[in-house]
C-alpha cells in the first residue's frame, strides 16, 4: 500500500467533518439570509415607526411655521444613532428643518413634493419618505435616511457567533466521529492488518473475528471464505508443484536413457521413492495375445512380488482383469480394490494395496503398456495424483517412443554411413575402372602381335621341337590369361553381370594353374621374410569337371590363395583339395568341391558374418575388401555354393561347391571353323605398326592380299582411292580407337563408298562393346584384341559369304 493514501479513519473523519461543515454552513447561510431579510424589514419598520412618531410630532411645527420646534422634534432622531439624516419639507416641497442641524443642504433632496410613503434601500442606506399628517390634513413630508451599519454590525456579530459555534460544532463533530467511527474502522483495520500479516507470513489458516455490524459481518465472512479458498488452492498448488517437480525430475532422468527397460526402471523407482507409492510396476502390451507382460517392478515393490505373483515377464490378462478400457488410453482408478471382483485388484487388495491406479502408455495412438501404482488405504489417490500419473504415463510413452525413434535413427544413420562409404569406394573404383580400361586397351594392343605370332607359329611350323612347342603353348595360355585378366578388370566398374561364357573345366587343372600363377606370393615373398608356407594339394583322382568360366574360376582360386597366405603371417600349411561329393538324392547331380584351407589366424563369428560383404576387410589399407566379394560373386554367377569354416587361432576353410558337369561335350567346344575363303583383298587400318605388320603377315600367310593403312584418315583415303580406281576390297579390318579419325568414322566412310563391303572392327574394348550392345553402326563384326587367328578366319569366312558359319560375335567366344 502506498503510504500517502489516506487511511479509512482519516477519510471517515474527513467525511463527517465535511458533512457537518456543510450542514452548518447551510444553516448559517439560511440564518444569515433570514436574519438579513428580517433585519431589513425590521429596519424599515423601525424607521417607519420612528418616522411616523416624529412626523406626528412635527405637524404643529410645520403648521405654525416653527422651524426651531421642528428642529427640536427632529432632534429626537438622536435616539437612533443609525439615523444619519432627516428633514422636514413643507407642502410646497421646500425644506423646512434638517437633522442634524449642522448638516449641509446638499446632503438632502433639494425639494420633496408631497407623495406617498416610500421606503427604499440605497447603497449604504435606507431612505424613508413619510407624509406628515395632522388628522387627515397633510402638513408636509418627512425625509429620513438611516445607514445600514446596523445590519453590518449585526452581521459581524452573527459571523463571530457563527465562527464560534462552527468551531465548537467542528470540534464536537471531530471528537464524536473519532469516537464513533472506531466501531466501523476497527473491524476493517483488523481485517487489513490480518491481510497484511497473512501476506507476509503466508499463513492462511488464521480467521478474522466477527464485527457487530451486518455488512462488516458479511465482509468478515467473505474474507474468511476467501482465506479458506486460498488455503485450499495453495495446498492444491503445493501438491501440483510437487507433482510437477517430480514429473520434471523423472522426465529429465528418462531423457538420458535410450531404452525402454531403463526408462521404466527410473520411473517405477522414482514413483516409489518420491510420489510416494507402495507399489509401482510397468508392463508392456502384446496386441496379438492381449496380454500385459510385467517389465519392471520397483525395488520396494519386489517385496510384494511373491504374494502378488508378479515377477518380470509374468503375464497379466487384459480381459479377465477388466483392463480393456486401458487399451483405449483410459486411466483406471480404483479407490477401493477390495470391492472389485477382478483377480489383479483382489490380489493387490489382499496385500493391503487398496488404492490402485493403472495408467496407459500410449504413443502415437498406439497402446503399448501400462504403469501400475498402488497405495495402502482406501481412496489414497487424489484426483491430482491421478492426473499426475496420467501425465507421467504420457511422458514415459513419449520417451519410449523417442528411444525407439532414436534407435531407428541410429540404424538409419549407420546405414547411411555405410552407403556413403560404399558410394565413395565405388566412385574410387569407377575412376580406377576407367584407368584399368585404358590400360586394358593398351595391353590388348600390345599383346596382339604376340598372340598372333604364337598362334601362327604353332599352326604353321610343324618342325618345331617339342620343347619349343611346349613353350609356345604356355606363352599362348599366358597370353589368353592376360587377355582374360584384362577383361576382368572391367568388373571393377561394370554394374551389370557379365555374360558368362561357360566351358568345361577340370578343376584339378585349374588348381594347378592357379598355384603356378600365385607361386610368387606363397613361396618367394614369405621366404624373403623367413616365413615358410607349405602348400599341399589333395586332388581328386578322376577329372573334377564342371561347367565354368575358367578365367573367373582361376581368379577366384587365386584370391582364396592370397587370403590364405595373408592369414598365415607366421607361416603354416595351405591345403587345396578337390573331391567329388555324391548327392544323397537319387537324381541329384554329384558336386565337385574345392577346399582352400589354411592354418592361420582364423575369424571370429562377427568377421565370418561380414567377410563376404564388399569393402569389408581386416587388412586395413592393404586390402580392398573386394577379394572375397568377387569370389562370392563368381560363386553366385555359377550357381555354386560357398561355405566358410573358421575358428580363431586355428585357421579357415573356404569351400566352393559346383555341380559336376553332366555333358562332356559342350556346345562351344566344337572345333574352330576354319574358313577356306580363298584369297581376299583386305584393307587393314590401324595406328599400331606392330599390329599392322603381324596381322599383315598372318593374313598374308593365309593367302590374302593385305593392304595396310596407318591411321583412320589414311584408311579412308586408301579405300576410297583404290575403290574408285577399280580395285575394290573384299573386307575392311579397322581398329576402333585411333587418333583423329576413329574406327567408327572409317566404317561409316567405307559403307558410304561401298555399302556391301563388310567391315570388321578390332578393338581392345571389344568385349565391352559387344556386352553392352554397343556395336557401332556400319560394322559387321567386332573382334577383340588380341585377335585369335581362328576367330579372324571364321569371321572373314562368314562375312565374305564363303563359309556357312552362323554370324557370331566372336568377342564372346573363347
Amino acid at each position, binding site marked *: 500500500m502506498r503510504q500517502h493514501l489516506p487511511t479509512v479513519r482519516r477519510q471517515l473523519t474527513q467525511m463527517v467533518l465535511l458533512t457537518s461543515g456543510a450542514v452548518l454552513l447551510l444553516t448559517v447561510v439560511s440564518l444569515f439570509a433570514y436574519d438579513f431579510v428580517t433585519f431589513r424589514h425590521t429596519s424599515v419598520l423601525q424607521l417607519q415607526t420612528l418616522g411616523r412618531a416624529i412626523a*406626528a*410630532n412635527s*405637524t*404643529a*411645527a410645520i*403648521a*405654525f*411655521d*416653527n422651524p*426651531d*420646534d421642528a428642529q427640536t422634534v427632529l432632534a429626537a432622531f438622536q435616539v437612533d444613532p443609525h439615523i444619519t439624516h432627516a428633514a422636514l419639507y413643507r407642502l410646497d416641497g421646500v425644506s423646512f428643518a434638517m437633522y442634524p442641524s449642522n448638516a449641509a443642504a446638499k446632503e438632502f433632496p433639494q425639494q420633496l413634493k408631497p407623495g406617498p410613503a416610500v421606503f427604499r434601500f440605497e447603497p449604504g442606506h435606507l431612505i424613508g419618505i413619510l407624509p406628515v399628517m*395632522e*388628522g387627515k*390634513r397633510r402638513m408636509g413630508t418627512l425625509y429620513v435616511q438611516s445607514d445600514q451599519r446596523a445590519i453590518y454590525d449585526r452581521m459581524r456579530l452573527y459571523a463571530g457567533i457563527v465562527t464560534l459555534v462552527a468551531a465548537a460544532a467542528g470540534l464536537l463533530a471531530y471528537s464524536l466521529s473519532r469516537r464513533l467511527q472506531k466501531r466501523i474502522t476497527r473491524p476493517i483495520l483488523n481485517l487489513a492488518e490480518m491481510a497484511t500479516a497473512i501476506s507476509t507470513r503466508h499463513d492462511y489458516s488464521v480467521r478474522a473475528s466477527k464485527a457487530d455490524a451486518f455488512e462488516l459481518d458479511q465482509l468478515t465472512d467473505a474474507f474468511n471464505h476467501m482465506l479458506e479458498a486460498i488455503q485450499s488452492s495453495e495446498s492444491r498448488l503445493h501438491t501440483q508443484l510437487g507433482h510437477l517437480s517430480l514429473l520434471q525430475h523423472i522426465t529429465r532422468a528418462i531423457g538420458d536413457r535410450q531404452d525402454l527397460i531403463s526408462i521404466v526402471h527410473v520411473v517405477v523407482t522414482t514413483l516409489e521413492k518420491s510420489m510416494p507409492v507402495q507399489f509401482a510396476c510397468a508392463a508392456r502390451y502384446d496386441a496379438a495375445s492381449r496380454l500385459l507382460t510385467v517389465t519392471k517392478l520397483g525395488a520396494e515393490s519386489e517385496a510384494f512380488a511373491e504374494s502378488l505373483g508378479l515377477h518380470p515377464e509374468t503375464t497379466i490378462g487384459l480381459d479377465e482383469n477388466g483392463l480393456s478400457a486401458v487399451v483405449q488410453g483410459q486411466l483406471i482408478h480404483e479407490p477401493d480394490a477390495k470391492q472389485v471382483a477382478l483377480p489383479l485388484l483382489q490380489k493387490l487388495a489382499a496385500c493391503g494395496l487398496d488404492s490402485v491406479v493403472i495408467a496407459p502408455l500410449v504413443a502415437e495412438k498406439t497402446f503399448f503398456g501400462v504403469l501400475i501404482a498402488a497405495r495402502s488405504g482406501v481412496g489414497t489417490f487424489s484426483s491430482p495424483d491421478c492426473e499426475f500419473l496420467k501425465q507421467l504415463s504420457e511422458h514415459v510413452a513419449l520417451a519410449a517412443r523417442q528411444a525407439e525413434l532414436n534407435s531407428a535413427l541410429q540404424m538409419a544413420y549407420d546405414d547411411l554411413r555405410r552407403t556413403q562409404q560404399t558410394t565413395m569406394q565405388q566412385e574410387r573404383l569407377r575412376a580406377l575402372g576407367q584407368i584399368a580400361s585404358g590400360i586394358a586397351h593398351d595391353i590388348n594392343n600390345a599383346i596382339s602381335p604376340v598372340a598372333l605370332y604364337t598362334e601362327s607359329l604353332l599352326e604353321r611350323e610343324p618342325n618345331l621341337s617339342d620343347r619349343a612347342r611346349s613353350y609356345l603353348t604356355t606363352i599362348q595360355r599366358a597370353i589368353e590369361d592376360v587377355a582374360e585378366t584384362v577383361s576382368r578388370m572391367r568388373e571393377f566398374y561394370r554394374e551389370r553381370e557379365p555374360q558368362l561364357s561357360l566351358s568345361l573345366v577340370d578343376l584339378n587343372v585349374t588348381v594347378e594353374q592357379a598355384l603356378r600363377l600365385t607361386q610368387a606370393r606363397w613361396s618367394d615373398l614369405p621366404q624373403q621374410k623367413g616365413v615358410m608356407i607349405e602348400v599341399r594339394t589333395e586332388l581328386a583322382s578322376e577329372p573334377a569337371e564342371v561347367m565354368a568360366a575358367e578365367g573367373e574360376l582361376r581368379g577366384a582360386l587365386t584370391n582364396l590363395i592370397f587370403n590364405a597366405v595373408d592369414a598365415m603371417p607366421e607361416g603354416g600349411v595351405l591345403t587345396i583339395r578337390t573331391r567329388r561329393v555324391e548327392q544323397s538324392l537319387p537324381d541329384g547331380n554329384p558336386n565337385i568341391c574345392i577346399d582352400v584351407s589354411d592354418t592361420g589366424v582364423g575369424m571370429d563369428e562377427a568377421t565370418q558374418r561380414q567377410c563376404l560383404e564388399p569393402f569389408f576387410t581386416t587388412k586395413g589399407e592393404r586390402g580392398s575388401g573386394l577379394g572375397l566379394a568377387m569370389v562370392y560373386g563368381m560363386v553366385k554367377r555359377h550357381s555354386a555354393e560357398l561355405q566358410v569354416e573358421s575358428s580363431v587361432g586355428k585357421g579357415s576353410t573356404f569351400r566352393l561347391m559346383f555341380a559336376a558337369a553332366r555333358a562332356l561335350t559342350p556346345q562351344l567346344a566344337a572345333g574352330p571353323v576354319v574358313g577356306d575363303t580363298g584369297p581376299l583383298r583386305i584393307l587393314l587400318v590401324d595406328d599400331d605398326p606392330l599390329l599392322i605388320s603381324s596381322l599383315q603377315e598372318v593374313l598374308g600367310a593365309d593367302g590374302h592380299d593385305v593392304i595396310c593403312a596407318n591411321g583412320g584418315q589414311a584408311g579412308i583415303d586408301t579405300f576410297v582411292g583404290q575403290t574408285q580406281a577399280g580395285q575394290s576390297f573384299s573386307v575392311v579390318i579397322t581398329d576402333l580407337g585411333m587418333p583423329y579419325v576413329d574406327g567408327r568414322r572409317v566404317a561409316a566412310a567405307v559403307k558410304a563408298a561401298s555399302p556391301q563391303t563388310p567391315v570388321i572392327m578390332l578393338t581392345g574394348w571389344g568385349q565391352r562393346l559387344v556386352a553392352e550392345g554397343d556395336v557401332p553402326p556400319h560394322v559387321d563384326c567386332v573382334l577383340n584384341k588380341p585377335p585369335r587367328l581362328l576367330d579372324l578366319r571364321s569371321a572373314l569366312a562368314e562375312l565374305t559369304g564363303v563359309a556357312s558359319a552362323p554370324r557370331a560375335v566372336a568377342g564372346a567366344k573363347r
Partner: protein
Amino acid sequence: MPKFVRHAGWILAMLLCAAARAAAPDEYQVEAVFLLHFTQFVEWPPSVLPDTSSPFVIGVLGQDLFGNALEDAVRGESVNGHPLVVRRFAKGTDLTPCQILFIDRSAVHDVDRILGPLAHTGTLTVSNFEVPAPADVIIRFLNEDRRIRLRINVDYARNAGLTISSKLLRPSQVVGTIPVG
C-alpha cells in the same frame, strides 16, 4: 387733484399691495393659514356644533385685513364634516356665534365687552395684539422677528371648554397652568 389721478393713485396702491402680497405672505396671510390650522389642533366641545349641517364659523372682528387670504385658505375645507365659513363683524354688537373669533387690533376697544360673554361659549378667541388685562384671548399671535409665534392661555381655553393639543402647546408660549396628572 383731478379725479382720475386719485383713481390712478388708488389703483397703483392696490397693485403695489397686490404685488407685495404676491411676493411674500404678509402677516395676515400667515395668520389666515394659522386660523385654519387651529381647527386641527383644538378640540371643541360637542355642544358647540350640535348639528352636522351647521357650519364651522371663523369670525373676523374689526378691520378685515385678510383680504381674500382667509377665504382662499378655507376654501373646500371642513372640520369634522362641518363646512368652514368666514364671517366678518365690523363691531362687537354684530357678533354671532362662531367657533374661532379673530379679533383684529382695530377692534381693541370692543375687547372688554366682547370677551366676557364669550368666555364660556366654546369660542376660540384669537387676537394679534395684547389685550389689556385682566381680559385675555385664548391664543394671541406674537410677531417676533418677522415670524408669527403663538401665546396660549390654557386657563382661558379650559374655561372655554376647549382642548388644545399638546402639539400646539409645545411650539407656543403657554400662559396659565397646565394641570398635571
